[in-house]
């Protein structure tokens, strides 16, 4: 089936293998490869501003995919994802400065450390769910955040921690341009891994736990194991994202890894589409670009003769903040299944054109 260029009308799959492919058609595979190739060549035309936005999308995207695995695929909830992201950032910096482990190894190690912490805080998931679980993970947010402020040996306390740039064979990835490739590689790698995870036995177990935990248990899926594993994988992704963030900035401060960050991650996966890998990325792109686009519109006002006075620009700044909230609400009303769903509809529209039914 996977050799077909277009998807046939109706689902005719004759083997599990066909049901499990990452790329449903050869066109999708080709487009994906081309997009990655284009992304590799993009720095030739993009300036530092776009590169930094892309890098932001990468590290936030990796962490958001983790949250989507937990929330969208396993049906659990976490309000502590921002703290796990921060833990990964500090852990990687700490491993590098305290044990002199090269940064390239620190990043995955930080992922595993965060995974351990995430599983510890995910333990209540074995017994509670829904709103109760949300509050239990909220505790993780506050405990870890407080830990950052106090644990001088780990996070440097008030003065923060230093994170060396990625160094590979003597080459320092300390500019936007060089770090762009690290970010791109990490993004592609982690997303392919995420896709593959969902095709595996474990991934299907996650979905089973989400859809009907009782049936899943009757079928022999160990609920506790998979709930905990889901927390672990989700934190692993958060840790990797956080570690990339740390080595990009070169400096980690306990500021920023607040409950707002956790909620922003939730907003990303909800806007992108719960239970969709590509939707996650769409949600992240949307949430990163929205304030920038609104900001640039405020910036444009400065070039108009009446817009360059503080009253107008300040007013617009407030409108900008409100607009972000407004857009999110509109999305929840008109697109509750996220951008991934809308993307599917757009594709269907063109596929069936002009005979949409």
């Amino acid at each position, binding site marked *: 089936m996977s050799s077909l260029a277009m998807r046939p009308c109706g689902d005719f799959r004759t083997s599990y293998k066909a049901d499990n492919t990452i790329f449903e058609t050869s066109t999708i595979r080709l487009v994906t490869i081309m997009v990655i190739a284009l992304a590799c060549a993009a720095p030739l035309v993009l*300036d*530092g*501003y776009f*590169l*930094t*936005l892309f890098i*932001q999308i990468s590290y*936030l995207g990796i962490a958001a995919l983790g949250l989507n695995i937990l929330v969208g695929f396993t049906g659990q909830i976490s309000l502590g994802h921002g703290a796990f992201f921060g833990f990964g950032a500090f852990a990687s910096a700490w491993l590098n400065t305290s044990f002199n482990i090269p940064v390239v190894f620190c990043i995955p190690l930080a992922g595993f450390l965060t995974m351990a912490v995430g599983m510890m805080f995910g333990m209540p998931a074995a017994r509670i769910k829904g709103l109760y679980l949300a509050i239990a993970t909220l505790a993780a947010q506050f405990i870890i955040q*407080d830990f950052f*402020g*106090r644990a001088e040996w780990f996070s*440097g*306390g*008030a*003065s*923060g*921690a*230093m994170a060396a740039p990625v160094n590979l064979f003597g080459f320092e990835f*300390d*500019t*936007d341009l060089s770090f762009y490739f690290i970010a791109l590689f990490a993004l592609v790698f982690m997303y392919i891994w995420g896709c593959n995870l969902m095709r595996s036995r474990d991934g299907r177990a996650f979905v089973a736990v989400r859809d009907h935990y009782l049936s899943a248990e009757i079928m022999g899926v160990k609920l506790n194991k998979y709930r905990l594993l889901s927390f672990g994988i989700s934190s692993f992704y958060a840790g990797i994202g956080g570690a990339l963030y740390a080595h990009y*900035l*070169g*400096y980690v*401060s*306990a*500021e*920023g890894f607040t409950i707002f960050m956790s909620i922003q991650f939730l907003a990303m996966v909800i806007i992108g589409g719960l239970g969709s890998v590509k939707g996650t990325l769409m949600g992240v792109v949307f949430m*990163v*670009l929205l*304030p*920038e*686009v609104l*900001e*640039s*519109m405020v*910036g*444009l006002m*400065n*070039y108009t003769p009446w817009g360059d006075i*503080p009253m107008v*620009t*300040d007013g617009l*700044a*407030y409108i*900008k*903040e409100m607009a972000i909230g407004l857009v999110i609400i509109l999305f929840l009303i008109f697109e509750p299944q996220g*951008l991934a769903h*809308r993307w599917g509809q*757009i594709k269907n529209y063109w596929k069936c054109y002009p005979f949409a039914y």
Partner: protein
Amino acid sequence: MYKTLLLGSTLAGITLVSAGVQAEDSVFVGHLADMSGPTAFVGKPYADGVRDALAYINANGGIDGTTLEYETIDYAYKVPQAIASYKKWLSRENMVAMQGWGTADTEALISFAAKDELPIFSASYSGHLTDPQGKNPNTKKPAPYNFFYGASYSDACRGLVQWAAEDWQAKGGQGKPKFTHIGANHPFPNAPKEACAEYATELGFDVQPPVVISMKPGDFKAQCLSLKSSGTNYGYIGNLGGSVQSLIKSCDTVGTDIQFMSNIWGGDKLVFQAAGEGVKNYIFPTMTPFWGDDVPGMALVREISKMSDASGQEPRLHHYIRGVCSTYFMKESMEWAKANGGITGPNVKKGMYVQQNWVPKGLEGVCLAATWSPEDHRGINQVNIYKGNYNGGDIKVEKVNQVTLERRVDWLGY
């Protein structure tokens, strides 16, 4: 299809901005401000000060004829937006210096600024920004391109502690006075915690375990009771805004007998107005005089204020005046840079080291005399100590003392 429309307008918005116009002879100064985020309470007046000063400089000949292009971005205290704005200015606008704001953005940009050789003038006064070469072994991250106008949080707290020691003697207090740090467990209130406790111990204080209160307003009666039971005589407040108001009110209800001393962001007329009766002999530091004070430099500050308030009636907080000072130090170092090889980041940094006991022209009596050197970014080592009283709505602020701290080597960078 409105998704496609949205996408189209997104792309259009981005490309339009990239085509920003540049004036003939101009340099760009970025300005990050928090006017709608968690620190907006003091972020707004400070940002107004910076912006009005930039506008005034342009209206009066710029930097010896060079116009300052500037853009104010309200990043709402969000680090990712601060980084994106910084990168945008750097790659598109040829930025030569930046006026920053709080702990969050300043710390996130330390390494970028050092790498890009771009001076950042922040309103984050953390002590660890003052060690540009990492001379103190305690300094984790040297911040060679970071400057700020004012005493560091640690130095201001040391000044307050010094005042408290004198006050204790003057009052004829017996035994060791007790000192407590009050603030959230957060980099900003924590910045002076250790340094200040160390100096307090040195001066013979009995330092109590710190009391944690949230950055957000709330009911802090429990914390006030623990302050009361520990018998704290002097309490340093590390928070700002609503949290400070709540603390004063809660402690007034509980009836603590404690001498509050706050950090520079925790004391101004708006706070006293809102906190009400609890404000009794509230001690706070400033780096500038107040709006109503009669010093020569205030004439210029009032002219600058007219840039956004034509009537000249709006009373400005001392945070506003500090914003003006920060901008004017940058302006004069740019003037030096222009005369010595052109306005570039490294030259502006060099310009900061040229003068000793430096007061920007026209701001005499407003900005304290500052000295920056390549090894020591503690520009100001003076702390003006003021006392605020509520008196049933008639807010009275009077100067208590001026403390000059020695530039001790072991205090550099923390």
